[in-house]
């Protein structure tokens, strides 16, 4: 394919990824409100549209039309940059998900590492947003979120190393191909476990949502944000959840491979299953305390991931 076409394709798929994340956020927010309502024996939103189906659409209109308030003492540039630096990397990480036709993203030689590296830029955005707001809640929320994010990044990456080891490649397409008929969740159950739990922490989901613990920090780093800038943080959270689930499906559940249905459908089904599990967890488990959270990352998951890596390497060698 000629370069201008590649560029145009990139533009198109970028727009598609953004739209997809937006639509997905709308669906997931509604689903989450309905699922949580069911779990907690309520009915959830009912007024806008049949059974409240159009509630999120109304919310979106409200958000883009809402006044954009900036605290007087905030650092104007960093305050504006923060939400963008949180949302953009989260969506950029979708550029290497092998959805299959018609959503062929890019197969980079280093795709797996790209997926782990790019969302890491989010931390910079969190710190900027929290610091720029000139507000105690935002400041502490930004610090906590970033400390949590970086702590869980290490065991998460170490769990993915085992997948790369087995697949012998850093390309996402190769990883899917290498799984063949046996998905890695069967060969590397511990890696999958570590990946799943640490991913929840990375996207700030319950039980790891201490940075946004309403009872202590109001809304964490986005306390001072309103309107569309606030929506960007929200979008980033769901983009992160979607990307982490899609990668869980690619790395451990065989990606788009499956009988009868086309790959893109299989991948979305597997992703959806992982997203559902995260919602289930959200409304079932209580929140961790900050110290428990950090202890879990460094004193449980990191040693566990190292042991897992060594055992996986030994077993792979012995079998080969």
């Amino acid at each position: 394919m000629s370069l201008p076409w590649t560029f145009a394709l990139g533009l198109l798929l970028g727009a598609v990824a953004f739209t997809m994340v937006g639509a997905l956020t709308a669906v997931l927010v509604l689903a989450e409100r309905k699922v949580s309502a069911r779990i907690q024996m309520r009915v959830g939103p009912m007024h806008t549209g049949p059974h409240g189906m159009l509630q999120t659409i109304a919310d979106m209109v409200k958000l883009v039309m809402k006044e954009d308030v900036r605290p007087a003492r905030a650092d104007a540039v960093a305050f504006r940059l923060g939400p963008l630096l949180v949302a953009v990397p989260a969506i950029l990480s979708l550029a290497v998900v092998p959805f299959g036709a018609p959503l062929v993203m890019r197969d980079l030689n280093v795709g797996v590492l790209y997926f782990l590296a790019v969302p890491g830029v989010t931390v910079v955005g969190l710190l900027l947003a929290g610091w720029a707001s000139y507000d105690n809640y935002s400041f502490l929320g930004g610090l906590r979120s970033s400390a949590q994010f970086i702590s869980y990044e290490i065991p998460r990456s170490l769990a993915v190393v085992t997948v790369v080891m087995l697949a012998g490649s850093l390309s996402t397409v190769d990883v899917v191909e290498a799984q063949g008929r046996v998905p890695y969740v069967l060969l590397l159950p511990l890696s999958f476990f570590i990946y799943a739990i640490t991913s929840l922490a990375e996207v700030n989901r319950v039980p790891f949502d201490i940075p946004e613990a309403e009872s202590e920090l109001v809304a964490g780093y986005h306390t001072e944000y309103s309107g569309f800038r606030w929506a960007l943080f929200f979008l980033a959270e769901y983009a992160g959840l979607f990307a982490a689930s899609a990668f869980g499906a690619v790395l451990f559940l065989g990606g788009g491979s499956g009988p009868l249905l086309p790959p893109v459908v299989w991948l979305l089904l597997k992703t959806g299953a992982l997203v559902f599990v995260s919602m289930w967890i959200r409304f079932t488990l209580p929140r961790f305390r900050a110290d428990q959270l950090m202890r879990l990352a460094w004193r449980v998951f990191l040693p566990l991931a190292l042991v897992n890596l060594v055992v996986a390497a030994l077993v792979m060698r012995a079998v080969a």
Partner: protein
Amino acid sequence: MSGTYLSDVVFLLGFALAVVVIPVVTLLVFGLLRPHNPEALKAEAYESGMPQASIPRRPFHMAYYNFALVFIVFEVETLLLFAVAPVLKDAGWLGLGEVAAFVALVALSLAYAWRKGALVWR
């Protein structure tokens, strides 16, 4: 697979451009439509209804910095493991031993940080 570097960059540039431009344009366009009524009280920092008790520019918990510090070291070690992971399958017992020695160094760093108490929240 070589020779795709240029088109990879071109694709990612297009992708990034779309992902950056869409929110920025949305912000600008709706910036013209949405209300804008600045007011001194509205621009105060939110502190649950009270006036701001302390300024948010103060020394904080050193623990945050300790985590960041240990993080960056382990990050580099993880990336080096990523560099050797794809060839580990064909590297034989010797290659495995070499990587094991490296992992031992990683474990040693972890043990030191653990003993120093850098990995707990105080």
